[in-house]
């Protein structure tokens, strides 16, 4: 029985014209083996709207030069555009000041920056760092490096079968040895939206700083760092409809001031002699070398795009897609959804007992459907569920109800072949 939720479909069309939005994304017009592209791998990376592509083109055709250095005209233009992008980021996540916005290569580099700078100067032998069982490898491995070096301990918040953090167990892990809590805001494999506000409150009662991995959050829900009151927040531009190779580390200014630089080089200094170097002011102290200038400006443009569509409306649209996809996928015999948290973002992981995710991925590819199959860089999470891999459909602001139907129908056809 197909349960088509007609009212939901209409609601979406009334408040949010997804078909018009799709026009902004040239890649969505391409065909894969003569089938329209049905792109459902947005948690891996998102497609870019024409507005972002135009911005990149404009930068390279009329502004390209190095920033913060030249006295010539173009250098001034590029510097202004780069700094304007920083302010766009600041406003987007409601930071207090542009000094709190550091451009990095992405979430991974942002977390590594904190581990190397804050971590190495604050964590000592016997100290502890808390992460959760659903972290992306990028929020595990940097802490392992740090803990190995400092003989510190990594503590893991357990999760329940639905994919929610077990909050009491989290509270039990906190001690006077805890130096940092670093958790994913929205899980890329399960879709779980973690109770980060409560986590931060509990941490602050014990004077512990918190880092949020917001790679899957800024694109799906409104993020307000002052309201959250987190010390650090990391995200990537390419998951927010912006270019690859650019990301952000937000950190409270008072903490950044106490942190040593992460990398040394140009731009991060104010004076260098062979005996001594004094560092540049914030945020430049943490941006050694020539930055991804085009990327930052492109990210600014992506933020303009998302803001113009309205992050609340995007969140509503994606919530409808998630609800509809959940109902429809449950029709499929033998399909089991991994991750049934009460608060979920538009990500659905699923498995079958007798069909491997890679086979599903290959079949769906022939229907033009792009999903991700594998461990999604969350191997400890897979071990928690005692599985090697899942198939994951993840939605973005341009996906439609019709695409959910294509996904479900394609999955059903795989079942027919395998169960024949």
């Amino acid at each position, binding site marked *: 029985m197909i349960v088509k939720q007609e009212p939901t479909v209409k609601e979406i069309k009334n408040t949010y014209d997804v078909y018009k939005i799709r026009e902004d994304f040239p890649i969505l017009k391409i065909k894969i*083996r003569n089938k329209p592209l049905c792109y459902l791998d947005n948690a891996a990376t998102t497609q870019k709207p024409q507005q972002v592509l135009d911005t990149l083109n404009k930068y390279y055709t009329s502004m390209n030069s190095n920033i913060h250095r030249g006295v010539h005209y173009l250098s001034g233009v590029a510097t202004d555009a780069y700094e304007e992008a920083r302010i766009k980021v600041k406003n987007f996540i409601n930071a207090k000041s542009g000094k709190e916005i550091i451009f990095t290569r992405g979430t991974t580099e942002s977390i590594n920056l904190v581990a190397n700078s804050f971590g190495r100067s604050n964590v000592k032998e016997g100290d502890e760092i808390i992460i959760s069982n659903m972290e992306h490898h990028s929020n595990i491995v940097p802490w392992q490096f740090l803990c190995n070096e400092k003989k510190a301990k990594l503590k893991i918040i357990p999760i329940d079968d639905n994919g929610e953090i077990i909050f009491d167990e989290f509270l039990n892990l906190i001690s006077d040895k805890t130096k940092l809590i670093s958790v994913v805001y929205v899980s890329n494999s399960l879709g779980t939206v973690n109770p980060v506000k409560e986590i931060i409150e509990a941490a602050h009662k014990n004077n512990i700083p918190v880092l949020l991995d917001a790679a899957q959050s800024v694109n799906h829900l409104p993020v307000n760092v002052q309201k959250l009151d987190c010390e650090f927040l990391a995200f990537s531009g390419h998951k927010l409809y912006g270019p690859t190779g650019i990301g952000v580390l937000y950190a409270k200014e008072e903490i950044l001031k106490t942190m040593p630089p992460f990398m040394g080089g140009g731009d991060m200094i104010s004076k260098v002699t062979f005996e001594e170097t004094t560092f540049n002011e914030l945020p430049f102290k943490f941006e050694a070398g020539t930055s991804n200038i085009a990327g930052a400006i492109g990210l600014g443009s992506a933020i303009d795009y998302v803001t113009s569509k309205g992050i609340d409306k995007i969140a509503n649209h994606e919530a409808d897609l998630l609800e509809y996809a959940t109902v429809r996928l449950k029709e499929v015999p033998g399909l089991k959804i991994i991750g049934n948290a009460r608060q979920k973002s538009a990500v659905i992981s699923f498995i079958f007992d*007798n*069909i*491997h*995710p*890679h*086979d599903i991925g*290959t*079949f769906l590819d*022939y229907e033009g459907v792009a999903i991700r*199959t*594998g*461990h999604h860089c969350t*191997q400890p999470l*897979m071990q928690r569920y005692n599985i*090697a*891999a899942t198939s994951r459909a993840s939605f973005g602001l341009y996906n439609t109800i019709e695409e959910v139907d294509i996904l479900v129908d394609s999955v059903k056809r795989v079942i027919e*072949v*395998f169960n*024949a």
Partner: protein
Amino acid sequence: MLDPELRELYQQVILDHNKSPRNFKKLETANRTAEGYNPLCGDKINIFVDVEKDIVKDISFQGSGCAISKASASLMSTVVKGKSIEEAKKIFEKFHDLITGKLDEDESIEELGKLAVLAGVKEFPIRVKCASLAWHTMLSALKNEDKTVTTE
């Protein structure tokens, strides 16, 4: 209608072996074992062999993987049983040429016997690792290397 390329990859024989793999168990008499791992997809395979005087007397496997890797392991177990270690190595070289598209269609495909059903893999370079994991693991078991083999 299934795409012909897809049908070529997922032939009925492969689907059958996936559904009911042969020699899918732990071999109690095994004197050599090895574990194979594909970090890309998290697939794992354990190979058990009973070798006597350079002959593979018996072989079995366990693990989880996609239809291609499971069928390949299952077919492999039926093919190398009774063969010498040298022969097993030679068959793998041929088989590897087959799935990477280096083998002329008519040249000696017969020698590969039922393994030829995996020829469709050559159109899917990403899946070559799936088809060869069991083989690499078996060869490691035959060398009696007690370590995890990875496809990377």
